[in-house]
């Protein structure tokens, strides 16, 4: 394409329209990078270790509208060995965040179950934040037959 006056004007208008649309409408699907970024925001840049946390989700979900998900962290729930929060992400959903659980000593055990929507086959990721500042992560791939977001 030649850089004529008409082309330049057209491009500028297009870019402006795109910027406006981008500000209002979230991208159709969150990419793995967006999830990675959200995890980094949660951990403050710290690397999450493996183990300690267990994420339970079905290998195959026939209906993406209600997919059971459980998280469990092996912890005494006292002193420094306390799970402060667990965040769940789905890296193929329109926005990756699913839920954040907050625990206290009164929780007795760092265990929570809920049901989530999955738009398509994707990774579900759980990251736990411990009181001593360490992080633990677990990941499961869930195959989805019927998507759960939108019509």
């Amino acid at each position, binding site marked *: 394409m030649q850089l004529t006056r008409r082309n330049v004007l057209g491009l500028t208008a297009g870019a402006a329209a795109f910027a406006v649309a981008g500000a209002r409408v979230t991208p159709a699907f969150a990419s793995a990078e967006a999830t990675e970024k959200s995890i980094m925001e949660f951990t403050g840049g710290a690397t999450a270790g493996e183990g300690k946390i267990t994420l339970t989700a079905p290998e195959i979900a026939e209906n993406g509208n*209600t997919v059971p998900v459980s998280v469990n962290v092996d912890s005494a729930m006292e002193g420094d060995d306390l799970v402060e929060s667990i965040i769940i992400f789905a890296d193929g959903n329109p926005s990756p965040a699913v839920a*954040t659980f907050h625990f206290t000593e009164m929780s007795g055990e760092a265990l929570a179950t809920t049901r989530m929507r999955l738009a398509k086959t994707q990774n579900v990721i759980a990251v736990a934040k411990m009181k001593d500042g360490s992080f633990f992560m677990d990941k499961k791939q869930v195959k989805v037959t019927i998507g759960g977001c939108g*019509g």
Partner: protein
Amino acid sequence: MASKPRIKVPKSASAGEVITIKTLISHEMESGQRKDGDGNPIPRQIINKFTCTFEGQTVFECDLDPAISANPYFEFNAKVPASGTFKFTWLDDDGTVYEAEAPIEVK
């Protein structure tokens, strides 16, 4: 609009026991991703926060995102130090607060 929440809490426990609580509230959890018949996006309206307290002390909280299924269900644990009442609150995007209570007796 949500209907009366359903809660399952044991009636009694021994002191210091860790019990399991199950809750479910009927709510559409409109994700904001769907479109109506004319192709216009339906605005998001979800329950965005769930809290469980025992005699004023926070037991469990959850921040919900639109990816939580309709009729949000939660199952979690709680330590029971003494007889008392569990209080549950759900906060809707439109500012409505849904509340429920469940007593427990320590034997």
